[in-house]
């Protein structure tokens, strides 16, 4: 049997991507002059982990580049080199390049070797300058760049005892203690003692399970973080105990390692030593107890240890498994709802008790559903973390001084929502930097501070997550927007708009931003796309602006995409769910407001607008109760700036529905976002309002009838 390492590639890429995010965040903090030893250790650990993983998986180009980078970072850790702005720039570019190399490797595409070679050479050039001098690149850096020696904050110990007990899956997961011990030996001279007492007879040995464990004495001034960095890649797959010893560390070792009968000091024990291995006696013995933890407050790397412990409390679970779980819970909720409806019509004492029990079941089900949904939740910091870099780079490029403030970055929302909200937020922040924040000169002239402020905040409000992008720039130019909107026929020549409607014009489709958006915020994506993306998520976007003071875009997002607030509407015997977020209002039609513009193509007047009428029974080919517009109801729905009236027989209740994908279970249908099961066991289709509108526009009733007949 051979071990297929490719099964670990995805995990490696995912973990590396997260690690690079934390490296970038640490570098940005460094650039702000915060030369915390822990930051430098974080950066080093990332490069080290990626190097180790790349080497294991045979991604030689990534491994070679990160090896050189690691060497440079090691000089920083050792305090041999100073951190300055130019060096941070180089490291940020290295971070970007690693990201690209990994993405190319993952996509099995060619790595841009020219760029790799160029940056590789640049890093080597930096290292060729004397190690105790500022880095080569810093010579070109501006004199005002923060220069921070890191030596003072790094304190070494004279020696360490490391107890390393590999877990059962360590080898299978592509890790090799041989490599780890080799790396330890690079830190300082090591004395390695192996413990072989858990090795069973060969016939019982699983050859892919490591049954050896080690105690290593490292004799030299090494930082604990450097030792932990060696084991970064196997965190959670082994028991690791690190104790300091030696004169520089006066705290006693709090967890003296037990005397292991089978331990062997490699260089010193005579050849007869293996005789002490009591093979038969230990074969059935329990595995060793995990080593007692070092007292954190006494350990020099207490902070590192705490961080490592905090991370140890999580596991990586595939999103498919969570979705399966969520789906099962959704089914349970439906079943429970069916039971409740059945019980509602029962009579007698037992029926009352049944209803009480079902009420309890419902409460527990809601609790369970919320818990499972929380598993899919991630903090919005996952998205927010990209902004310090973006603001820094863009501000530099445009010659603007910008301070980014983040708040509420621990606010959690659904992973899918998070993935989709990233690009719209980037667009809004770019816009704020490009158009909102003025240049320092303009700001000073307006009596403002030279530093502009962009604030990204997130918070929970009424079952939704609200994300706000605020800037203290010049605000939107109302008259300029109105003039442009009139020019494009979006607003009548004499029409006066409230501020809110005027500002919201920037989200209108067709509101060309060509002459107001530079290459920075352009990217071929307009604000209408931002709004559409948010609406597709079931969200809502508003903009507020005060001339001279700044603007604020407020996005309201649902916590999850698995559940939808829906309005149930009946057409004949069918029930449809209309997302509440799309509904503007519901009205009864008056005859005098309806005009026929072609055979059976009708519009009706809603205040100053003429809206097309979409008869759902025609669209979906069902038998309605009413065909007379006056007998039913019109739901005014809006999508992509278009409004139509959906003709239905009757409105029913509003309720949260669990969305079932039609695409997964059947096939995609234009105008239908999914399906759900109602409390009475009936299946109801959930309308996709933009799809309904486009379907109504492209399919005339005559064509629809013809296709049904065929």
């Amino acid at each position, binding site marked *: 049997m051979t071990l297929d390492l490719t099964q670990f590639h995805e995990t490696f890429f995912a973990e590396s991507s997260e690690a690079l995010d934390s490296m970038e965040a640490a570098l940005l903090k460094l650039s702000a002059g915060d030369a915390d030893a822990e930051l430098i250790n974080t950066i080093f650990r990332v490069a080290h982990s990626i190097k180790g993983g790349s080497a294991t998986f045979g991604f030689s180009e990534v491994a070679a580049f990160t090896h050189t980078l690691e060497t440079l970072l090691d000089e920083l850790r050792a305090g041999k080199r100073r951190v300055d702005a130019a060096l941070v720039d180089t490291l940020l570019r290295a971070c970007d390049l690693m990201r690209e190399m990994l993405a190319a490797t993952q996509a099995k595409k060619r790595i841009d070797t020219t760029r790799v070679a160029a940056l590789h050479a640049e890093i080597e050039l930096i290292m060729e300058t004397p190690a105790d001098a500022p880095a080569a690149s810093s010579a070109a850096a501006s004199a005002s760049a923060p220069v921070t020696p890191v030596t003072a904050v790094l304190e070494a110990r004279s020696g360490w005892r490391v107890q390393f007990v590999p877990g059962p899956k360590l080898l299978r997961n592509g890790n*090799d203690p041989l490599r780890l*011990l080799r790396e330890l030996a690079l830190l300082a001279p090591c004395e390695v003692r*192996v413990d072989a007492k858990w090795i069973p*007879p*060969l016939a019982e040995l699983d050859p892919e399970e490591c049954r*050896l464990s080690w105690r290593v004495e490292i004799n030299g001034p090494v930082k604990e973080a450097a030792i932990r960095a060696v084991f970064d890649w196997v965190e959670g797959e082994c028991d690791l105990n690190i104790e300091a010893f030696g004169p520089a560390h006066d705290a006693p070792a709090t967890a003296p390692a037990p005397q292991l009968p089978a331990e062997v000091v*490699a260089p010193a024990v005579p050849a007869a030593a*293996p*005789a002490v291995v009591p093979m038969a006696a230990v074969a059935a013995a329990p595995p060793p107890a995990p080593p007692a933890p070092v007292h954190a407050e006494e350990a020099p790397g207490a902070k590192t240890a705490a961080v490592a412990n905090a991370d140890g409390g999580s596991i990586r679970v595939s999103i498919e498994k969570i979705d399966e779980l969520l789906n099962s819970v959704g089914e349970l909720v439906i079943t429970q709802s069916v039971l409740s409806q059945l019980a509602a019509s029962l009579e007698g004492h037992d029926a009352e008790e049944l209803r009480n029990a079902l009420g309890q079941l419902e409460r527990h089900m809601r609790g369970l559903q919320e818990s499972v949904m929380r598993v899919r939740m991630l903090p919005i910091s996952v998205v927010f973390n990209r902004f310090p870099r973006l603001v820094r780079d863009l501000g530099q490029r445009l010659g603007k001084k910008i301070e980014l403030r983040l708040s509420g970055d621990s606010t959690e929302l659904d992973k899918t929502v998070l993935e989709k909200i990233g690009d719209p937020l980037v667009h809004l922040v770019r816009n704020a930097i490009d158009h909102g924040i003025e240049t320092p000169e303009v700001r000073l002239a307006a009596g403002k501070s030279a530093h502009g402020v962009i604030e990204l905040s997130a918070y929970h409000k009424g079952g939704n997550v609200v994300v706000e992008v605020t800037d203290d720039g010049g605000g939107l130019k109302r008259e300029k927007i109105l003039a442009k909107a009139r020019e494009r026929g979006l607003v009548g020549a004499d029409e006066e708009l409230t501020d809110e409607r005027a500002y919201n014009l920037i989200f209108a489709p067709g509101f060309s931003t060509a002459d107001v958006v530079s290459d920075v915020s352009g990217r071929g994506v307009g604000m209408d796309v931002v709004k559409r993306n948010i609406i597709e998520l079931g969200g809502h976007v508003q903009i507020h602006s005060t001339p001279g003071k700044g603007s604020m875009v407020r996005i309201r997002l649902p916590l999850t995409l698995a559940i939808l607030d829906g309005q149930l509407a009946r057409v004949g015997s069918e029930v449809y769910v209309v997302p509440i977020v799309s509904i503007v209002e519901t009205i009864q039609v008056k005859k005098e407001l309806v005009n026929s513009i072609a055979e059976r193509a009708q519009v009706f007047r809603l205040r100053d607008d003429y809206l097309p009428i979409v008869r759902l029974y025609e669209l979906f080919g069902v038998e309605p109760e009413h065909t007379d517009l006056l007998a039913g109801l019109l739901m005014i729905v809006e999508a992509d700036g278009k409004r139509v009236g959906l003709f239905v027989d009757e409105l029913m209740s509003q309720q949260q529905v669990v969305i079932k994908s039609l695409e997964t279970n059947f096939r995609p249908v234009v105008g239908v976002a999914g399906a759900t099961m109602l409390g009475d066991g009936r299946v109801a289709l959930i309308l996709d309002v933009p799809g309904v509108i486009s379907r109504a526009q492209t399919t005339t009733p005559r064509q629809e009838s013809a296709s049904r007949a065929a």
Partner: protein
Amino acid sequence: MIAAAQAPVPATGGPPVSGKLVLGVSCTIHEAQALRTQLLAQADHAGPYEIDGSGVQQVDTAGVQLVVAFALDCLERGVTYRWTGRSSALEEAIRVLGVGALLECPG
């Protein structure tokens, strides 16, 4: 990969051997199952054995652990063995993993 020569190998100084064990070029986790099978087959023969590790070019902990398990089995059974050669790659792995003493036959 491993080749186990079942025919007795002429003794060269030491006690007569009934099996010569030649460790293959690669003794890593990829070959671990095959290596284990071959070591078990070797253990079916009465010792002493000669182990030739001079051709090993790739080795990892899984490979070394199997050889250690084999050596400990020999110790249990009172079978002796001796090394006829160890490549530099194998030597380095044995040194780094600290298993040198476990692979010295006391006999």
